[in-house]
């Protein structure tokens, strides 16, 4: 759907050019929810603004639906933008227009629809986002969550193939964030709209996205399915973002140091495996004991996961590990170089030698 090839973006700065993006290669598939995560200043906004050419790349090519669009101007550019809806962190609604007027705005711009047609479309859109009764209100009379719903309805007005959301929930409280994310998933499901979700919160990616790219200092440092990136983070920047999403900050090094007398392993149970009582059974069968040093349990979108760092001791530790692996558990052994059951290469957190530094 969207491909970015070798994208570079420099901004003129006081002391020479500032490189905001450097050699970005990304491919976003039709119908997926693709997350772009990174800390402040990583270049997320710049990246998303390149997709609808609000910003022109210094180098590289933006390809939408198989067509290179980087040099688009005038009418082709405006047509392209109509096929790409955008939702903003600060809503950017027209304060002089009612909710109805805001959603009607993009339709009026096309000049293709009559009054009655626009009214009918706006009504459907407002119903979709749950704002049917607020059509005649002005934005200032709405709550943040309602404003963002107007923003979403407006972005959907021209029936886009893609929705770009730049920190769409960052100005909202947790509960409202949840309902807006829910709405976006519903839109993705019902309308098949591809969604590009920009955020600095790993938790939002975990709950919403299919795949994710981690941006750091203008480069994609890691990308893949959320199950992969969230459970087996590789790059320092990703680790930092994952730790931020953990309730205790993910720093459990002390606990690990106190109790770790056996073999320290990280076990990842994903999907069906996470629902089975595997660990206890296999420990019993192999005469092994396990001490849980750290752990996290939850869902990645709808997929359940559980991940524990345990210290294994007892008669047949190797047998226990083999048993877990054959049960579908990903086992990463502290000190081992190769990890089976996943394409992941060694675990940086475990490799650093200083014991376990983050939750796992």
């Amino acid at each position, binding site marked *: 759907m969207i491909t970015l090839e070798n994208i570079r973006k420099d901004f003129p700065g006081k002391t020479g050019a500032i490189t905001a993006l450097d050699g970005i290669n990304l491919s976003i598939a039709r119908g997926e929810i693709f997350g772009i995560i990174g800390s402040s200043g990583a270049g997320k906004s710049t990246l998303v603004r390149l997709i*609808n050419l*609000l910003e022109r790349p210094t180098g590289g090519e933006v390809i939408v639906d198989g067509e290179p669009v980087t040099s688009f101007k005038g009418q082709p550019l*405006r*047509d*392209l*933008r*109509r096929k*790409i809806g*955008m939702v*903003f962190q*600060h809503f*950017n*609604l*027209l*304060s*002089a*227009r009612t909710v109805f007027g805001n959603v009607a*705005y*993009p339709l*009026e*711009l*096309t000049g293709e629809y009559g009054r009655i047609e626009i009214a009918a479309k706006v009504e459907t859109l407002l119903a979709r986002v749950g704002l049917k009764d607020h059509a005649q209100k*002005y*934005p*200032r009379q709405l709550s943040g969550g309602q404003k963002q719903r107007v923003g979403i309805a*407006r972005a959907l007005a*021209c029936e886009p193939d893609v929705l770009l959301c730049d920190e769409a929930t960052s100005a909202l409280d947790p509960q409202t964030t949840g309902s807006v994310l829910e709405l976006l998933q519903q839109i993705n499901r019902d309308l098949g709209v591809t969604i590009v979700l920009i955020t600095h919160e790993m938790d939002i990616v975990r709950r919403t996205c299919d795949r994710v790219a981690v941006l750091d200092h203008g480069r994609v440092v890691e990308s893949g399915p959320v199950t992969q990136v969230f459970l087996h983070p590789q790059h320092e920047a990703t680790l930092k973002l994952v730790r931020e999403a953990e309730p205790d900050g993910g720093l459990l090094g002390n606990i690990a140091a106190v109790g770790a007398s056996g073999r320290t392993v990280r076990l990842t149970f994903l999907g069906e495996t996470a629902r089975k009582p595997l660990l206890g059974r296999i420990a019993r069968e192999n005469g092994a004991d396990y001490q849980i040093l750290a752990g996290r349990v939850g869902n990645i979108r709808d997929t359940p996961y559980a991940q524990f760092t345990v210290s294994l001791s007892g008669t047949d530790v190797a047998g226990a590990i083999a048993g877990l692996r054959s049960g579908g558990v990903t086992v990463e052994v502290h000190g081992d170089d190769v990890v089976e059951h996943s394409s992941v290469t060694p675990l940086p957190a475990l490799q650093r030698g200083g014991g376990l530094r983050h939750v796992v």
Partner: protein
Amino acid sequence: MSFENLYWSDIFAALSQTLAMVGGALSLTVLLGLPLGILLYLTGRQQIFSQPFAYGGLSFVLNIIRSVPFIIMLIVLMPVTVIVTGTSLGIRGVIFPLVIGTAPFFARLVETALREVDRGIIEASQAMGASTAQTIFRAVLPEALPSLLAAVTVTAIVLVDYTAMSGAIGGGGLGDLAIRYGYHRFQTEIMLVCVVILIVFVQLIQAAGNRLVSHFSRK
């Protein structure tokens, strides 16, 4: 001080002249100043059609006009006024210099008002596939409407002031009356009445302006 020899009919005639001058000059000022203001806004630094040279040139010319005191402008412009309107006297003769005097001022106010519109709104409009003209006329100008109305109000009051001044060189209106009777013939009471009427007039303009501004404020 006696009010017996007040010429009420003269005063009413002068008032209607003032109204005509302010009204006429105001509409022409808006007609000329609004596009100029939009042009300043568009060509300004980091704006949609950023054109540093065009902006600098336009800005320079407007500043020159604005730095000339209006009373001098009236005199300097007299020959041009005669060419444009056929006379330098009366309502017709005074509207031209009034417009030249206030349009640059109004244009600046328009520029400021438009710049205050949130950039995010412009960006959103562009992201929805709006052309620049659509963004200006359907998003930026409506968003700036309260500030633009405030700018019109301020300009109208400046025009009341200027019309009074133009009375000195035969422009007519309340200012003219006040100077002719009050200054040249020492009939201070006429001058007083004229000033009171002007004060009331200015207050009314401001009040009406405030009402309009708050009516269109949706923020």
